[in-house]
């Protein structure tokens, strides 16, 4: 089976290279048939990769430990679903998953557009195949999951080596959010190759109007959504599995997935300016290139061992290849952008600072500054070693200092952006637009202060949350009430129909609400409490409104791990709410790693988070670490809204809706918006 998998990979690699060469050749010679054959070869490569992936899954499920990947990432006692998840439990297999996801994206794009964009498609195929072949090449020659374990005999000959059992899946990965988080993150990382491929093709064919941008609208939203979901699932995993009480620690790998999300978010906003005003053309091409490169960079960080991280794989030797690839992509794209500058001229200057355009520009500016700061902080150990010969690191205070104000400024823009008109906003209309949001948020701010809240950022954040929420609610209210009056629909169905009629705009507003909800959750961090105490049986500890009473301690054995747990009764305001049993586990396979199993009592208001950190005082005391983390629930809930909002935006249009130019409802209602679908 491993030979078959290897063969499939090799076949896919050859097909990918053929598709690359043939598509370029076909495009240059304008030979339609050659381009066709390239596209078919590319699709065949995708099929071949799917077979390779299936054979690795088969090897994992049947526990064939003669294969190095299976031996290092799985073991016999593992439940079947974790055996499958072990596919991405070590870096060679996860690279195959990566290649597989890339091939799915490439396959769908090529199939969907087989009759469209005939000038651009050969170059799109070429870029997709460069990307695919690069990763396939790494997967085949440097990090091959199908390698067999061999043993050297005394006389120097090699012989097959089959261990009794595998090293097992890293126990930290044995958790549902971890099981689905890597594939989802990959969908996000890799997905940006599609918009990049179209941008590149547009540069090559000089078709730099906004047609390429409209083509890739969905292709940008899909990876953006997955990346966002992957980020937050990663946070959820860290929260539940790492046991340090938080979900975000500015770890290099977390940062690596945040960076393309930031630039991707910037891109999603700045394309609107290009579509509407013909501005920012160079900027958009540049942004999408950076976003794609940052996705590759994220892969590089997790696999190169350049930077230490809890999420990273142990060292692998792929680092330099990623650097070559990223530099090549960067320089070729930059050359093309510079060469095509005359085609990328802005059609219009900036009219006023108080305009929608300028709100978008500021949004882009601070998103990029945030990305740069995160990049700088993440790479600082490497950079300082190059420059000074002395490795230095920066910690969370640096990241927080820069990113909290940026986050709040973005939140502010989320609120005021939609209130600004395109081109120029009169002070008069601003007064009108700001009236209700200010009426609600200012007293709210005062109430917070009176209630004794003194954390500056927290007060600002909550106030802005109210402000933004009111602006979004008003947008829905205005649109829906006009619609209800004109069509005679009920108010609720007017809201639904309004959203469906203009999915991009109102879907976007739903995402903005999600951002507000996530900010509420993030702001809760300002009020975290923690208490650490050694308890004997019968003793208790207090944290906030909670009391924990130690009842019992036990040790037990399962096939996969040994465990030690304490039983605690949790009281809230003196009332028993539940019994909590935080655990320590010792996994038997491999490195015999210990893990912490957190106990959580989660409510929308706050989480009670309890960790058992070990037996102390020679078995007489048990060390308990308890946290009260307010509002964490809203981070997860906001993420769900974000996915929902993006899905609304992605809903297919009803037939014909796109063909006829039509005025949006709000414009017909004279709200001052010109949302013409071109």
């Amino acid at each position: 089976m491993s030979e078959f998998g290897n063969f499939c990979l090799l076949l896919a690699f050859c097909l990918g290279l053929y598709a690359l060469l043939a598509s370029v050749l076909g495009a240059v010679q304008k030979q339609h048939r050659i381009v066709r054959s390239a596209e078919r070869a590319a699709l065949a490569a995708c099929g071949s990769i799917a077979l390779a992936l299936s054979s690795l899954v088969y090897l994992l499920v049947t526990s064939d430990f003669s294969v190095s990947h299976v031996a290092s990432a799985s073991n016999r006692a593992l439940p079947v679903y974790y055996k499958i998840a072990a596919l991405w439990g070590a870096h060679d297999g996860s690279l195959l998953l990566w290649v597989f996801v890339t091939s799915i994206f490439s396959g769908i794009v090529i199939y969907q557009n087989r009759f469209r964009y005939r000038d651009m498609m050969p170059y799109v195929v070429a870029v997709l195949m460069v990307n695919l072949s690069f990763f396939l090449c790494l997967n085949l020659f440097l990090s091959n999951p199908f390698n067999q374990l061999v043993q050297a005999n005394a006389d120097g000959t090699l012989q097959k080596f089959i261990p009794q059992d595998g090293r097992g899946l890293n126990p930290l990965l044995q958790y549902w959010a971890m099981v689905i988080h890597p594939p989802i993150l990959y969908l996000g990382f890799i997905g940006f190759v599609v918009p990049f491929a179209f941008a590149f093709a547009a540069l090559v064919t000089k078709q730099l109007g906004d047609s390429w941008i409209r083509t890739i609208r969905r292709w940008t939203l899909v990876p953006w959504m997955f990346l966002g979901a992957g980020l937050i699932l990663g946070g959820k995993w860290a929260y539940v599995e790492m046991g340090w009480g938080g979900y975000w620690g500015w770890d290099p790998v977390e940062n690596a997935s945040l960076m393309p999300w930031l630039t991707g978010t910037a891109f999603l906003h700045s394309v609107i300016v290009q579509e509407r005003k013909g501005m920012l053309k160079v900027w958009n091409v540049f942004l999408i290139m950076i976003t794609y490169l940052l996705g590759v960079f994220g892969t590089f960080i997790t696999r190169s061992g350049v930077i230490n991280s809890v999420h990273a794989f142990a060292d692998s030797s792929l680092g330099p290849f990623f650097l070559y690839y990223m530099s090549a992509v960067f320089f070729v794209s930059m050359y093309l952008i510079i060469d095509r500058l005359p085609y990328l001229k802005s059609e219009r200057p900036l009219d006023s600072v108080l305009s929608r355009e300028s709100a978008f520009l500021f949004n882009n500016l601070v998103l990029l500054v945030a990305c740069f700061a995160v990049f700088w902080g993440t790479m600082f150990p490497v950079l300082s070693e190059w420059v000074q010969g002395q490795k230095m690191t920066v910690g969370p205070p640096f990241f927080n200092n820069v990113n909290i104000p940026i986050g709040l400024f973005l939140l502010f823009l989320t609120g005021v952006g939609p209130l600004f008109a395109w081109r120029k906003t009169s002070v008069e209309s601003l007064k009108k637009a700001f009236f209700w949001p200010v009426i609600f948020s200012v007293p709210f701010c005062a109430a917070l202060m009176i209630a004794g809240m003194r954390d500056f950022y927290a007060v600002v954040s909550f106030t802005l949350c109210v402000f933004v929420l009111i602006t979004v609610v008003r947008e829905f209210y205005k649109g829906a009430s006009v619609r209800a009056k004109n069509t005679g629909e009920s108010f609720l169905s007017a809201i639904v129909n309004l959203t469906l009629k203009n999915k991009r705009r109102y879907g976007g507003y739903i995402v903005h609400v999600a951002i507000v909800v996530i900010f509420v959750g993030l702001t809760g961090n300002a009020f975290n409490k923690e208490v650490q105490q050694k308890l004997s049986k019968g003793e208790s500890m207090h944290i906030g409104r909670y009391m924990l009473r130690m009842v019992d301690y036990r040790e037990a054995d399962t096939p996969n791990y040994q465990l030690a747990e304490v039983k605690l009764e949790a009281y809230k305001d003196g009332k028993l709410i539940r019994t909590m049993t935080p655990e320590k586990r010792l996994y038997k396979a491999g490195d015999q790693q210990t893990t912490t199993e957190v106990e959580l009592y989660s409510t929308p208001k706050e989480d009670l988070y309890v960790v058992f950190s070990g037996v102390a005082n020679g078995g007489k005391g048990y060390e308990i670490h308890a946290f009260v983390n307010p509002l964490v629930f809203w981070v997860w809930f906001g993420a769900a809204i974000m996915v929902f909002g993006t899905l609304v935006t992605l809903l297919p249009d009803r037939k014909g809706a796109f063909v006829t130019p039509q005025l949006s409802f709000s414009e017909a209602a004279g709200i001052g918006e010109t949302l013409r679908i071109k």
Partner: protein
Amino acid sequence: MSNPRVKFVVGSLVIVAALAWLGFVGFQESKAYYITVDEFRAMQGRAQGKTLKVAGDVVEGSIDRAKSPLEFVIGHQGQTLKVQYIGKEVLPDTFKDGSKAVVEGTITLDGVFQAKHIEAKCASKYEAEYESKGKS
């Protein structure tokens, strides 16, 4: 100043400058020199007063959980360093005998390193075992 472009550029510069300043403050607050135990020994007096991240292997059997604060010893290339953990965070699960640890903190005058933060990675003994048995 009537040109909106100029206004935008000036606004941007103000924002970027403010953020750069905040970044600089955060950087001063959290920068740490990353060194190994033997490099730390070579620094001698210069290590005083600086925030350092010192990397080394946790010496087998050196973790003394009975003491409060907890004490242990890390070593690298023949040099060792006694560490006191004064941080509040839960110690990572990977922190145990033989693991690779990075301790962040400062050195006291009596030569004990006071760590506020500890990162640890398991020494992969199984990987080593495979390598000795043969190359994959």
